[in-house]
């Protein structure tokens, strides 16, 4: 079996978990294996039927009142116990904030290595091969993992969902046994940020600003455009972040986040090597810059050489029409 951890936030299943489930389904078919989905929490009744249609044959609900709020320790204990019982061939998690926090903890508990933030999974000679960016995308590494289960986190927004299937499957409810005092740290509070609901790592479209934005107030232009495009987010270059124009959670690049959206629009960004590394796996890249010599144009599919303060308002207007 390939087991997938399904992350929920406020009772809703994360899309990136369903993407991981889709990839599990495709690779499991090649290996002739079933797919399991594991949910962890206190209240296990709010089950989302999408999980079956997105590829799961069996859903495991691991419940314990102590798991009401996320804790890496508690979740790792629950998943470790399930993995030891059902002995999956592989375990996939989405490389979200939670997945990146939980997966290494689970790996250490199971005593197996982990492939982080994978962008490709293949079956070669009956074994799984995982490809992942290193140096923020300046290079790609393909690895095999020794020991079972093979544990990997999959980058959001890279793997397609499974073809929708009208299936139902088995639901297995289990009490997750958590020893007293085992949870020494947990989430106490969640607050929404000013950055919108979608992180740059999950966004399908990113519009990023750099030094050419000239000041923090002008990021409003990018936010207005992002508000028009569904599943989009505002990004930034390191120099914009270091100037204090926008929060560092928006930073794309080697000391920020590595992203692979369908569309990356770089506005007033010259294209330093650290920035290019973080976004060059985007499917389509657009550069808007007044300097025709800016290195960003060498990586861009579409470019506009011009003043961004003239380009952006017209771009926003046209988008508003397209999305009307």
């Amino acid at each position, binding site marked *: 079996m390939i087991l997938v951890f399904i992350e929920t936030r406020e009772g809703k299943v994360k899309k990136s978990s369903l993407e991981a489930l889709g990839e599990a389904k495709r690779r499991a078919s090649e290996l002739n294996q079933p797919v399991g989905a594991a949910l962890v929490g206190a209240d296990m009744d709010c089950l989302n039927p999408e999980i079956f249609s997105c590829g799961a044959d069996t859903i495991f609900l691991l419940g314990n009142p102590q798991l009401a709020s996320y804790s890496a320790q508690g979740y790792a204990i629950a998943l470790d116990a399930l993995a030891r019982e059902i002995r999956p061939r592989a375990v996939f998690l989405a490389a979200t904030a939670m997945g990146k926090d939980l997966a290494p*903890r689970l790996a250490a508990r199971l005593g197996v*290595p982990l492939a982080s933030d994978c962008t490709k999974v293949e079956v070669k000679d009956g074994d799984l091969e995982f490809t992942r960016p290193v140096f923020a995308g300046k290079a*790609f590494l393909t690895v095999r993992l020794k020991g079972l289960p093979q544990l990997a986190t999959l980058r959001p927004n890279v793997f397609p969902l499974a073809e929708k299937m009208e299936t139902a499957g088995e639901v297995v409810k289990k009490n997750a046994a958590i020893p007293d005092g085992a949870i020494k*740290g947990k989430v106490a509070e969640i607050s929404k940020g000013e950055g919108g609901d979608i992180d740059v790592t999950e966004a399908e479209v990113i519009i990023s600003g750099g030094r050419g934005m000239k000041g923090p107030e002008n990021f409003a232009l990018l936010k207005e455009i992002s508000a028009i495009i569904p599943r989009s987010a505002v990004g930034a270059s390191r120099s914009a972040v270091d100037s204090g124009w926008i929060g560092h959670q928006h930073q794309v690049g*080697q000391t920020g986040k590595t992203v692979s959206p369908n569309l990356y629009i770089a506005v007033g960004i010259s294209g330093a090597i650290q920035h290019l590394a973080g976004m060059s796996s985007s499917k389509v890249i657009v550069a808007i810059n007044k300097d025709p010599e800016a290195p960003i144009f060498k990586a*861009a599919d579409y470019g*506009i050489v011009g003043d961004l303060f003239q380009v952006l308002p017209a*771009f926003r207007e046209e988008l508003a029409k397209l999305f009307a």
Partner: protein
Amino acid sequence: MNILVFVKRVPDTESRIRINQETRSVVEEGLNFVISPFDEYAVEEALRLREAKGGQVTAISVGPEEATSILKKCLAMGVDEAVLVKDSLKETYDGLRIAKMIAKTVEKRFPSFDLLLFGKQSVGADGSQVPAMVAELLGLPQANIVTKLEVEGSGGAARREIEGGMEKVVFSLPAVVSAQKGLNEPRYETLRGIMAAKKKVIPVVTLEELGLTGDDVAPRVEVVRMETPPARQAGRIIPGAPEEAAKDLARLLRTEAKVI
């Protein structure tokens, strides 16, 4: 407070990465090595905590002999002691292997501590694995990708980034915390610090001394391939006045590229 902060020697972010296909690894020749940028936030946070609460900060690196240079930097920034855990293998991309060495070092050499600080990931391997793995191996709570840290008495609270917001994690001490950009602004070394660091002896701990041999430290991540991505081709410049070009761009993204 007794704080251990873990640092790694990595190629700086300006580096162009070349690959030796025979060894399936990065060509190190000509690269400039530095302390991983996220580790600097961890060192700074350790120093600030010591300044506020007293105690001792020890910087520890797992790596080759050459990693002493980044430990010297930590000493120059103000840490009290530095220790090198000597690992002669190059990057293996196996976080658990390193986490085991760190856990053993802590158990054998530094059994009394309050806080283990790390950078949220090493620049290069980009794994984000070691802090949480060490936490599990030592049975400690964790807070990763932290932009704000408060420690009081026998516990702490950390703010960490999640998609579209922040999460507050509360934990008991001792604990593992990994630092994200935004946690603080790392200080520069002072001249006096640099001079003092030069005189300081950096003890070297071998894996044998930690009781780690053979299977314990054999990499379990097998590198099948390592490649640089194909260079992107420059596309086309959309001609015309800025307003016109902008409108054309929006339409092309819809009809030609089909990405919006």
